[in-house]
């Protein structure tokens, strides 16, 4: 008897589970410190840097990388790329989880998290772009939840509810695109209020446009990237329909992403010209700006194009990673590196260990939940009873 339990126990001790377990324990400990000792106990935030990596990574990058939900849904249902249909569910699930985690991270970051509903329900600061972001994230999370529910209902076998929701798909998708456009761009627009704090190479009145366009590239790349990950680790959950279309999706998204990155690059050049900031390129910040533009925007645009033309799936996969990295670099540049560029270097912020632990913890929670859901519910496969009914 005891041997059986031992074996059972041992089978859970996979490297994946051990690492996840350790991260989650560490995260829980820091959580306790954060909520009993205040922000000062776990972060390096100060009066010059009120926003640290919880905003840079968890909010700005989190939202941008969860853009796969609205891009894929729009491509499939609005623009009529029906062959992307099998990619919609994983993308929507990732987006839903992504946004849920963003909201979770915000509970750590704001001083009084229990007041997070205040801007919507108590007193509305409508002149604030953060109000815009908050309202849209709240509504979009609801939309994503409704888009995800059919998956849950199919799993549970609640047909009536599921059918009612599926009928609303188009409305939800268009709503999702509107809300995403708004808050993706508003995240960039947050910084338009502080031209004196953000380096001119990154500050632009076009910041909202930059953030929106780059979020499309981020979303598409994340779908490609996650697709290849899931393929490796969750292959057994995929039906032939998913597998048959997977290559199509990857090629189509690679092409689309290359095109979007081209547009993004062009827009950034327009921004430079519009504010006459070319002369800054000769400085240290200028060099870093060029690295961002050339290595993380122009290069992936080119590599995607080559990958799509040659049907080189390995190249596309690596380019997706490069693009995702590029978006992360961009968001960090805007919110940390080029922010407070006028301050002496000793006043600069660097994240504390415990801040990083919380960020890693939150990503880990996301991965675990994704695994839980996608190994049970009809995400990568069509539920046999509802075949072709979307």
């Amino acid at each position, binding site marked *: 008897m005891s041997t059986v339990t031992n074996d059972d126990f041992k089978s859970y001790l996979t490297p994946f589970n051990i690492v996840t377990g350790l991260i989650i324990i560490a995260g829980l400990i820091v959580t306790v410190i954060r909520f009993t000792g205040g922000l000062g106990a776990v972060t390096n935030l100060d009066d010059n840097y009120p926003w640290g990596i919880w905003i840079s990574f968890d909010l700005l990058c989190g939202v941008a990388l969860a853009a796969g939900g609205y891009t894929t849904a729009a491509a499939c249902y609005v623009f009529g790329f029906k062959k992307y249909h099998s990619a919609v569910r994983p993308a929507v699930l990732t987006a839903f989880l992504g946004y849920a985690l963003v909201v979770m991270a915000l509970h750590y970051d704001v001083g009084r998290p229990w007041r997070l509903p205040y801007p919507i329900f108590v007193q*509305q600061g*409508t*002149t604030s772009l953060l109000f815009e972001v908050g309202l849209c994230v709240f509504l979009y999370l609801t939309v994503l939840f409704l888009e995800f529910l059919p998956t849950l209902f199919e799993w549970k076998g609640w047909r009536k509810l599921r059918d009612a929701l599926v*009928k609303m798909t*188009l*409305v939800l998708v268009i709503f999702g695109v*509107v809300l995403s456009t708004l808050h993706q761009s508003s995240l960039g627009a947050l910084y338009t209020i502080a031209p004196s704090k953000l380096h001119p190479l990154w500050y632009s009145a076009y910041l909202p446009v930059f953030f929106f366009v780059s979020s499309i590239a981020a979303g598409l790349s994340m779908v490609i990237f996650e697709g290849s990950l899931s393929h490796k680790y969750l292959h057994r959950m995929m039906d032939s329909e998913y597998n048959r279309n997977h290559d199509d999706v990857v090629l189509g998204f690679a092409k689309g992403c290359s095109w979007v990155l081209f547009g993004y690059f062009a827009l950034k050049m327009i921004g430079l010209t519009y504010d006459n900031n070319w002369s800054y390129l000769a400085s240290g910040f200028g060099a870093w700006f060029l690295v961002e533009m050339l290595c993380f925007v122009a290069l992936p645009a080119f590599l995607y194009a080559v990958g799509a033309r040659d049907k080189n799936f390995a190249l596309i996969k690596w380019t997706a990673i490069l693009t995702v990295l590029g978006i992360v670099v961009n968001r960090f540049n805007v919110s940390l590196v080029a922010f407070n560029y006028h301050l002496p270097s000793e006043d600069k912020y660097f994240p504390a260990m415990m801040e990083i632990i919380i960020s890693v913890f939150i990503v880990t929670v996301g991965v675990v939940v994704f695994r839980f859901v996608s190994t049970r519910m009809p995400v990568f496969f069509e539920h046999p009873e509802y075949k072709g009914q979307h």
Partner: protein
Amino acid sequence: MEFNSMHEFFMHTKTMTYLLMGGILVGAILWWQFLMGEKKPIDNPHRTGEGHDNGHGH
């Protein structure tokens, strides 16, 4: 109405605009259904709503 500052002015206009936006989104859905729901129950792939199969509109 009097506004002491641009901030007060924007606070007012943005609040009104947000309310209007909510109205527009709801209105868009209703209008779409009205527009796409023809009276004759012919084969119509656009129809999204339920229960409007006949007597739609008035």
